[in-house]
């Protein structure tokens, strides 16, 4: 019986630093570890004692790719704690900004990080050499997302215009309507993207995921909603901690999530499978054209689902820009009071949960933030275990390559999760 260890000590094309170790005894998988080794960042601890108004800007520093997930989650939580409801116009502007974040994140992942896997290429450099027009298209889409973030948020990385209660200032209508032609181009490009990636060859592999996502009564959930699951859960965000836990594991600086003690799956597959009927019209049309029926349980098809969501983001951005009127006032007044508040949004990689308690002066007394990659950590390890077991007969280098892809399926944001990727497969 031969022993094999497959290991990747620094995973490529993911956000942050992580590793993968897989051990096999003969053709039996005996151990799988998805290791996150970025140093812990202690955000939840150093929020204690800070003012409730500071939480959005401080937590936005957790991630340069998905800062809106932190800005909005923290703002919602503080608004809930202070008993404040924001206006529909502010909600729409938040959704529009979030579309910008989805566009830049999904375009980056699809074209520069994930597509090379399906085209048999090692990286974006080779992709640029063999398919320069594809890379240009991806970069142009990403740039539109960046610009949207900048116009609404003041800058594209760690935007500075969002606050508890809304925005410091609202962009002028002409500044947003100027995006219309870019967004129209982007919608067509997103449809082409979906056709391209929908035609890739996917490994035959499915898992019986327990999906968890936000659901909004009348739109594809992005910036708010109730929490629903594929086993019938339907709760307010404020009840999250009654059902979901997070635990430490020795091999990772990331906490790992559990739903009633079980692994669960968040992100594009979960959203798509739970909210398919709420896709925007063009997204629904392209999903049907691709034959991408929900639930999608093959994680390698996440690239196609991400492309459909890119269509959603461009369609929604176009709709919101066309009907935009600046909210007056741009923020509702918020006065602190002692209390507990929660917030949750759909970051590009899945739900991002925030909970804070504050005292009567608005000082933060406790904080909990659960990032999507923390929540997906057990699901990622489950995929790796199942895929390695089903494909144990593959040569080591081929198996290792597929296992790396299996991690990239999640577009994991390791920087967010530390509180990463190296791959190692051992055969005994």
């Amino acid at each position, binding site marked *: 019986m031969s022993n094999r260890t497959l290991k990747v000590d620094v995973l*490529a*094309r*993911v*956000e942050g630093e992580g590793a993968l170790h897989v051990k096999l005894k003969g053709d039996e998988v005996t151990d799988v570890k998805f290791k996150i080794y970025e*140093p812990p*960042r202690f955000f939840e601890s150093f929020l204690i004692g800070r003012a409730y108004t500071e939480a959005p800007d401080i937590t936005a*520093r957790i991630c*340069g*790719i998905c800062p809106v997930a932190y800005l909005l989650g923290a703002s919602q939580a503080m608004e809930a704690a202070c008993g404040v409801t924001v206006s529909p116009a502010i909600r729409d502007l938040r959704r529009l900004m979030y579309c910008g974040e989805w566009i830049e994140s999904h375009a*980056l992942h699809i074209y*520069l*990080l994930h597509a090379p896997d399906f085209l048999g290429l090692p*990286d*974006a*450099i080779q992709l*640029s*050499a063999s398919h*320069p027009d594809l*890379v*240009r298209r991806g*970069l142009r889409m*990403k*740039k539109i997302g*960046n610009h949207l973030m900048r116009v609404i948020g003041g800058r594209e*990385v*760690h935007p500075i215009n969002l606050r508890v209660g809304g925005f410091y200032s609202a962009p002028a209508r002409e500044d947003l309507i100027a995006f219309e032609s870019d967004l129209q181009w982007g919608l067509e490009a997103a449809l082409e993207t979906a056709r391209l990636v929908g035609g890739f060859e996917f490994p035959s592999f499915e898992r019986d995921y327990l999906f968890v996502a936000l659901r909004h009564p009348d739109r594809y959930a992005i910036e708010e909603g109730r929490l629903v699951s594929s086993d019938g859960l339907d709760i307010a965000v404020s009840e999250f901690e009654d059902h979901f836990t997070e635990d430490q594991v020795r091999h990772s600086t990331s906490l790992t999530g559990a739903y009633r003690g079980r692994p669960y799956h968040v992100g594009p597959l979960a959203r798509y499978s739970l909210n398919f009927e709420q896709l925007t019209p063009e997204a629904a049309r392209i999903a049907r054209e691709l034959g991408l029926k929900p639930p999608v349980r093959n994680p390698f098809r996440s690239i196609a689902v991400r492309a459909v969501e890119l269509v959603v983001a461009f369609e929604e951005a176009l709709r919101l820009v066309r009907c935009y009127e600046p909210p007056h006032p741009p923020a509702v007044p918020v006065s602190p009071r002692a209390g507990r508040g929660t917030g949750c949004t759909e970051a590009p990689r899945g739900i991002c949960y925030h909970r804070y308690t504050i005292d009567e002066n608005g000082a933060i007394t406790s904080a909990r933030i659960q990032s999507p990659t923390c929540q997906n950590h057990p699901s990622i390890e489950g995929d790796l275990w199942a895929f390695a077991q089903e494909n144990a007969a593959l040569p080591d280098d081929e198996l290792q390559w597929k296992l790396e892809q299996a991690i990239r399926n999640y577009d994991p944001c390791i*920087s967010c999760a530390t509180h990463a990727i190296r791959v190692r497969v051992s055969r005994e």
Partner: protein
Amino acid sequence: MSARPRVIGVGCRDRGDDAAGLVVARGFADEAEVVLCERGGPDLLGALEGATEAVVVDATIGAGPPGTVRAFLPDELPSDVAFCSSHVFGLPAAIAVARELGALPPRLLVVGIEGESFELHAPLSATVERAIPEARARVRAWLSEGRRS
């Protein structure tokens, strides 16, 4: 194409010496178009777009003692020096992609400053702080050379 030279600072303002590139670039607002690039590779591609002449400044690991300032032409980027802003993919990959796309500025220099500490939420180390004038002098010399040619 932009006629004004571009000085692109790459790095993260919250990670100690990783901010060195941003600090150097900020000093050129009067003589160049300054672009601050806080997400490394993918955003660097956008920052290079349309420039005819650019200097990219980033922190390095492995280029010598902390505070060492080195300049590289894009074809001469050493494989044993790590540029620090590698969110997803780093500076050398971004330059390679730009080259493949035909989007590399015709005149491009990369200036690296060897970092000492990359602690989260820390300021620049004293060693790197002392190296900032030398890095700026390198950038300024390159810009002057471009104006003469």
